[in-house]
């Protein structure tokens, strides 16, 4: 059935055929013809949608099929969401080592994006914790692969944007959960670089650390002020009550967006000012339930809707440690030159990451901005692309829906290797998406 489908940032809006099989034989029948595999449909960059082929949803394949509490592993179908797993594991004092920030994200999406959480410097990326996965491809049938079995296909699938076929199930390593609550403290940061140094200073002790900065008015004297939110698991279970049911409501459909942008250059400085002061003065120290820390976007869905129909662009850059100081200076100069208000600015640390194919992994400062989607922003991002290439930074392919192919080829040294191996595995290239078509895969 034809439907209007969109990327989360609203930069890609298409009419496509969406199929939601609820029986395994129907899912395989659809996958036999290839197409685009779709999880929760929350990709920023249209990795799960296609205007030409069939969009196959794995929504109904969300079952937990194996679990061993003592050996600490969990096997789930690819459509199983982080929220469902969180609800199941938390009472058993277990958790997934790496989780991105929204509970509706599916495990298939986490595999295909080789995603990260707010603890990369401790636990790395999602792919490091996958023990085994089952993949279906019409030309190869069902393949069980792991780091030691069909490792070439395994490597191609982890961070492979869903282009190797239909992920049926995934077996994941778990880690003990120290506590269901986290003590959160906020430290004031006077500038981006000050914030970076503060994050570095707590990286050994904090279980999680994230910097937030106000760049909403590039000409303001408060530009770059913010706070570092760092958390440690509580030693005492002050609140042993059961988790509330997690009911995520974020949807990428354009029909759910406000007609006009509630977040704009007039409201943004006010929103950011209030948010910064709230976190610095009023809620400097707090105890959070775990879901609030793990899924910071949960309950803040209005932020995404607030950009309206024109949407936004998110860019996430991994800056080498030795380039951070000069990068942040040049970034501010570029921002002032283009006079671009930034809706959201965050930073976190990546450490001991491994650069493989097109995964956003490595070591350095991960620096993220959300800006309005307009012509001025496009010019600003073009200049930022040049800066990123000059300092050896890497831009996340899964965040920036306008990132040009030539920039990806420059930043990701294994782009050609990935493309060649993907073509060798699937010469007919049966699985495509708007993302893969845009970046020449």
């Amino acid at each position, binding site marked *: *059935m034809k439907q209007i489908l969109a990327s989360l940032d609203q930069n890609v809006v298409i009419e496509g055929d969406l199929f*939601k*099989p*609820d*029986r*395994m034989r129907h899912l395989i029948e659809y996958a036999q013809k290839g197409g685009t595999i779709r999880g929760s449909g929350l990709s920023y960059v249209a990795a799960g949608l296609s205007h030409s082929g069939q969009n196959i949803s794995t929504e109904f394949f969300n*079952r*937990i*099929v*194996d679990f061993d509490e003592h050996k600490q592993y969990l096997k789930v179908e690819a459509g199983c969401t982080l929220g469902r797993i969180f609800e199941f594991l938390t009472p058993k004092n277990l958790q997934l080592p790496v989780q991105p920030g929204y509970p509706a994200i599916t495990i298939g999406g986490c595999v295909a994006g080789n995603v990260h959480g707010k603890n990369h410097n401790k636990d790395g990326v999602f792919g490091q914790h996958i023990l085994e996965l089952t993949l279906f491809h019409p030309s190869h049938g069902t393949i069980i692969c792991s780091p030691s079995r069909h490792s070439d296909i395994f490597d191609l699938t982890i961070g492979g944007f869903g282009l190797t076929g239909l992920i049926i199930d995934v077996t994941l390593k778990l880690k003990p959960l120290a506590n269901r609550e986290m003590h959160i403290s906020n430290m004031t940061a006077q500038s981006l670089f000050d914030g970076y140094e503060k994050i570095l200073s707590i990286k050994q002790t904090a279980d999680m650390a994230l910097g937030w900065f106000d760049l909403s008015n590039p000409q303001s004297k408060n530009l770059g002020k913010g706070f570092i939110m760092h958390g440690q698991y509580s030693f005492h279970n002050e609140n042993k009550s059961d988790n509330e049911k997690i009911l995520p409501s974020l949807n990428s459909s354009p029909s759910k967006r406000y007609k006009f942008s509630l977040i704009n250059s007039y409201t943004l400085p006010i929103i950011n000012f209030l948010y910064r002061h709230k976190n610095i003065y009023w809620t400097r120290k707090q105890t959070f339930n775990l879901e609030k820390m793990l899924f910071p976007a949960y309950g803040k869905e209005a932020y995404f809707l607030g950009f309206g129909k024109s949407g936004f662009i998110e860019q996430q850059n991994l800056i080498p440690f030795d380039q951070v100081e000069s990068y942040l200076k040049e970034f501010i100069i570029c921002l002032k030159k283009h006079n671009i208000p930034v809706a959201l600015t965050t930073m976190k640390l990546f450490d001991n990451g491994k650069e493989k194919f097109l995964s956003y992994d490595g070591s350095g400062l991960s620096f993220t901005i959300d800006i309005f989607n307009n012509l001025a922003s496009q010019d600003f991002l073009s200049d930022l692309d040049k800066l990123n290439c000059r300092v050896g930074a890497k831009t996340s392919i899964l965040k920036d829906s306008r990132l040009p192919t030539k920039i990806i080829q420059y930043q990701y040294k294994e782009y050609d290797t990935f493309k060649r191996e993907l073509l060798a595995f699937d010469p007919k290239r049966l699985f495509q998406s708007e993302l893969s078509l845009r970046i020449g895969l």
Partner: protein
Amino acid sequence: MKPHSIIIGASAGLGRALAEELAARGHSLFLISSDIEDLQPLAQDLRIRFNIKVFISSVDLKNFYVHELYADICNQIGEVNNLFLIAGRSDPLKDSGFIDDHFLNHLITTNFLSICQIVNIFLPALSMNQSYNLVGIGSVAGVRGRQKNMIYAASKRGLETYFESCRHWLTRQNGAKVQFYRLGIMNTSMAQSGGPFPMADPHVIARTIANNLGKDLGTTCLPSWWKLIMLIIQNLPWLIFKKLNI
């Protein structure tokens, strides 16, 4: 002791939602469907998440022996407290005008005959206790014959009458409570679109069905606002009804 519930047609849609709802309430389950590939992971999921007993059996309602199925259920789960007949099949495109004989048989067997056979074999057991429940699923499609879903609608209307008879018989035997639901369009793979009507969430319907266990409901509509639509359709004069492309 936790109740024992049998769900015929458990692998997808409402059947699966009902299995999850009953599992959350601690019921021991016997799940039946033709899709073993879906029953197995569903049973595993329910055992792992809710720590309950789940038995499964792969049965194709087009071709099965009801005595074998009955023996299998009784051997594995013992006493049956609740029997849910959810299975059904529709295809509005093929089920209109002249219908292929094989497909016609298939629709009647799946939607009516097999269900009656299963209910029939359980009737003596269901008549033993007032706390037992017999739950059937009909459709708003059966409210008035129209050009689409001809055999499906007829089968569901027939099933409704059969359940009405069962309710009468069981009441006189001081036996199980009977609940028969005329369902509106639900958001499952069987329904491509709700047309002008919003599609109901199978999990919400499943919760209502589970909440109604133990009640002598007879026949009712879910979601309840369909009652109004059905009243209008039932009472539309033929002169108007014949012009509608529904």
